[in-house]
């Protein structure tokens, strides 16, 4: 362990002398239901269109209208798109939080604000740009209703002028949003222009942030993870979808429904190649997916934590009676209802062991829209190959925020429907035994109702290899041992980890899902700030591959970085690893509900590595009460 101490300083993302190009974050503080989402997405998209890597994260309350909401855009030429704690530019539209928002900024930050809020009296170490929104909106429209709706577009105009976002890109982005509604585009464009003109005339540029066109985003799209999963399901050929609304998973199914209605209805007959049911609850949703899977459909459901908790009994049934189905869990902050509009990776452990008795489930961990897409497809293949429920653990940050992604690649492999009994197989294996391990891999053949193959009785109670009811010890043991064997077989079929070995590194990092993006940035910080080299193992599935142990073997200490309180993935790892390797594991845990950021990881790792760090590891982007420290 390095003996030297190190005072880490945040690289200033702004300097007062030279321009900071394509490297800053803008936070828009508004009230939900006020229609700012359009303005924010247009801003995000226009920067994206200029070729600058961006991400957009929405911090919204669990209600429909009237409460504070923060939308943060990070533009970063180096492609760092994780959340960043520091806000460089604040657009303060919400009177209720404005003071606190401003107090939370670092010195030198920029504040664009609604003039009557008089925020310039709060601090004198910031750069203030007051904008008289109410006056300006009068120039756009006389109609009171309309005014309220385009008011937000004005700040886009202001920002365009201030930071050099091309106004035509903004109009293009507007068109993308409101393609079919020219009148809407028109009035919004007017608002943009009004803002732009105002800034041009009245605001003197005093900050150094600039957006400049670059070549960053060829072949890239902007999409949220839920939509990406939806495209994956569409392409996976899902046929039965049963769901129950719950934030943050609802948009997965809703987007999927839109795609299915568009692309999976026979043009000629108007008939659908899919069935979607909004079930009465999550228990029924999984029950329907199981019924569908048993009867041969590619079936799925999507939910979030509370739904997963309700699915326990049915998950055990599917595991033990070996019925394929896919369950998306777009994780949010628990326990219980918790913070339904905040992100977490908190369902890893309870989902891996979901259901009583010796139950165990494969989990997939997408980190990006591309992986949401690909893993959705893999999930169906794996579910049918292993005849078991497969859980895809996304999270709110991935599912509901807007991400850059490479365009998805059309699947190059045909669907894997697994070991479905047909006449040839029946001839080869002789007598059909639903739970008979003919191939020695723990996976048995299944017949599908309604095809004329031999039937069997599917049940959650004890059964022998012929599928008959049995309470015999030997039948029971043989069967559950085979299930263990099947799970072992699954290991090497799961998406492989992405491993980056750094020969100079004594330290390894393990992460999964959305934590990845902060890790990428943090690893660079560790090198830049403390010359700390790291290797990286990005887990993509459970059960783990044996490569995990080899990776840990190569390193003295391995940091498992995750977004939950209880070190859940690390726990799963400890269970499997040889003790000697388990002993090398350290944890970096982030569970504030906001997406993890690089700074938090870097500081935490450095402290654990024995460096002295000036920063406190935890401080959310949402400004914190003064008196309310951590523990």
């Amino acid at each position, binding site marked *: 362990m390095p003996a030297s101490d190190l005072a880490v300083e945040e690289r200033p993302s702004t300097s007062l002398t030279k321009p900071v190009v394509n490297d800053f974050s803008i936070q828009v503080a508004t009230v939900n239901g006020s229609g700012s989402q359009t303005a924010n997405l247009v801003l995000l998209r226009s920067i994206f269109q200029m070729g600058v890597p961006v991400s957009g994260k929405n911090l919204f309350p669990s209600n429909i209208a009237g409460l504070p909401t923060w939308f943060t855009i990070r533009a970063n030429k180096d492609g760092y798109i994780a959340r960043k704690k520091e806000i460089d530019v604040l657009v303060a539209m919400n009177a209720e939080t404005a003071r606190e928002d401003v107090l939370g900024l670092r010195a030198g930050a920029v504040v664009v604000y609604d003039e009557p809020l008089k925020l310039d009296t709060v601090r004198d170490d910031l750069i203030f740009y007051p904008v008289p929104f109410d006056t300006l909106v009068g120039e756009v429209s006389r109609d009171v209703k309309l005014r309220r709706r385009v008011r937000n577009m004005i700040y886009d105009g202001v920002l365009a002028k201030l930071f050099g976002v091309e106004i035509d890109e903004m109009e293009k982005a507007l068109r993308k949003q409101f393609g079919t509604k020219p009148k809407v585009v028109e009035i919004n464009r007017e608002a943009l222009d009004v803002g732009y003109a105002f800034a041009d005339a009245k605001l003197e540029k005093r900050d150094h942030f600039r957006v400049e066109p670059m070549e960053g985003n060829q072949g890239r799209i902007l999409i949220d993870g839920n939509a990406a999963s939806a495209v994956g399901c569409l*392409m996976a050929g899902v046929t039965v979808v049963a769901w129950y609304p719950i934030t943050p998973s609802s948009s997965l199914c809703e987007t999927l429904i839109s795609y299915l209605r568009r692309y999976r209805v026979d043009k000629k007959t108007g008939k659908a190649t899919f069935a979607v049911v909004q079930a009465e609850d999550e228990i029924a949703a999984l029950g*329907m997916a199981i019924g569908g899977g048993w009867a041969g459909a590619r079936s799925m459901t999507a939910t979030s934590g509370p739904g997963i908790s309700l699915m326990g009994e*049915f998950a055990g049934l599917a595991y033990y009676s070996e019925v394929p189905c896919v369950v998306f869990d777009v994780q949010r902050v628990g326990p219980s209802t918790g913070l339904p509009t905040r992100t977490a990776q908190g369902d890893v452990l309870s989902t891996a062991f979901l259901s009583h008795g010796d139950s165990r489930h494969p989990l997939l961990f997408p980190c990006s829209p591309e992986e949401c897409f690909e893993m959705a497809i893999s999930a169906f293949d794996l579910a049918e190959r292993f005849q078991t429920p497969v859980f895809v653990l996304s999270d709110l940050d991935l599912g509901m925020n807007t991400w850059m992604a490479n365009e998805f690649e059309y699947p190059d492999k045909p669907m894997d429907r697994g070991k479905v009994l047909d006449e040839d197989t029946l001839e080869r294996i002789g007598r059909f035994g639903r739970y008979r391990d003919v191939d020695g891999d723990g996976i048995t053949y299944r017949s599908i109702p*309604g095809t004329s193959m031999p039937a069997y009785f599917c049940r959650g109670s004890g059964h022998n290899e012929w599928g008959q009811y049995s309470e015999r010890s030997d039948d029971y043991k043989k069967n559950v041992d085979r299930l263990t064997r099947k799970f072992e077989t699954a290991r090497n079929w799961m998406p492989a980890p992405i491993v980056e070995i750094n020969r100079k590194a004594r330290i390894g990092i393990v992460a999964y899902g959305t934590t990845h993006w902060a890790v990428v940035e943090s690893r660079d910080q560790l090198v830049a700030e403390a010359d700390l080299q790291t290797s990286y193992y990005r887990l993509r599935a459970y059960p783990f591959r044996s490569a995990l142990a080899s990776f840990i073997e190569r390193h003295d200490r391995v940091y498992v970085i995750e977004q939950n309180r209880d070190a859940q993935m690390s726990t799963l790892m400890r269970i499997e690893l040889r003790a000697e390797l388990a002993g090398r594991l350290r944890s970096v845990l982030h569970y504030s509900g906001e997406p993890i950021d690089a700074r938090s990881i870097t500081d935490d790792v450095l402290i654990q590595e024995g460096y002295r760090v000036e920063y406190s590891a935890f401080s959310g982007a949402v400004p914190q009460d003064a008196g309310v420290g951590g523990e």
Partner: protein
Amino acid sequence: MPTATPSPKKKKVNRIGLELPIYRGSKTTLCAGCGHNAISERVVDACFTMGIQPDRVVKLSGIGCSSKSPAYFLGSAHGFNAVHGRMPSVGTGAMLANKDLVAIGVSGDGDTGAIGIGQFVHLMRRNLPMVYIIEDNGCYGLTKGQFSPTADVGSTLKTGVVNDLAPIDTCALAIELGATFVARSFSGDKKQLTALLKAALSHRGIAMLDVLSPCVTFNDHEGSTKSYSYAKSHEEPIEEIDFVPYFEDITVEYEPGTTREVTLHDGSRLFLKKLDEGYNATDRAQAMRVLRETRARGEFATGLVFVDPVAEDFVTSLNLVDEPLASLSEGRVRPSRSVLDDIMGGLR
């Protein structure tokens, strides 16, 4: 299975050329005299007579003595013995996967009325094409006799607990919720039950049959409205832990329009009132009224209580392609490369 060496005299076959034994299941493990066994036999009869293709049938159930029944009929059909009270959702998924299947669900009054009432409500409301049989004994047989939500007011358990709650009338509930075929019968009424099952199998939509089915072992309705305590003193010396007596099946036959009193094994009585031949089953309001009135008299109206032969069923309303979703080839369910391009285009 048809024997390999054909027997000399021709066996009786149904309209699709199958013999009766094909429609049987494995040997029952329920108590002798249990009404559930009689119901299984009626399902066998009905399917045989109707010439139902066994390999198109899926048998579904929850958990309970009743829910074991699917193992005892149509041995060559697929079956799914799911979890307690949640079979309707499994059946729904299966029918979506393959709309050509004939779904026969068997549940108990506990499985349906207690833990399963939520899924029952939504199954009725959705009008899923499925024959849904409640083998209704007013108790939890498999867990040894606790009250179910169809238990009579005043029934008493061995612990001394008395049931104060009025029974749920699953027929009235189903009709209120929009079910399109609602019937009630008695496990021992061969003729009526077989006829109703045949009608149910012909119905496209949910066909709900509440079949009174005595539990000979636990449903001892001392003090209940539909029974009287009979010769209890005679029984005393034979009381013994864990002894389940052997009973004969009860069978009844009676005419439409008449009322018939059935004495159950424990001496309690059941009053069955068979609906008139002239009864018009398509009038929802009248059906509700008949149920309410007979119930008030302590009787059970039996027969086809309500039917709506024209309402669209859930699966049809989804306007699915003709081929079952489950068997659609990859080409039909995985959109082409151009579709993905199209989607990507919108996101660039």
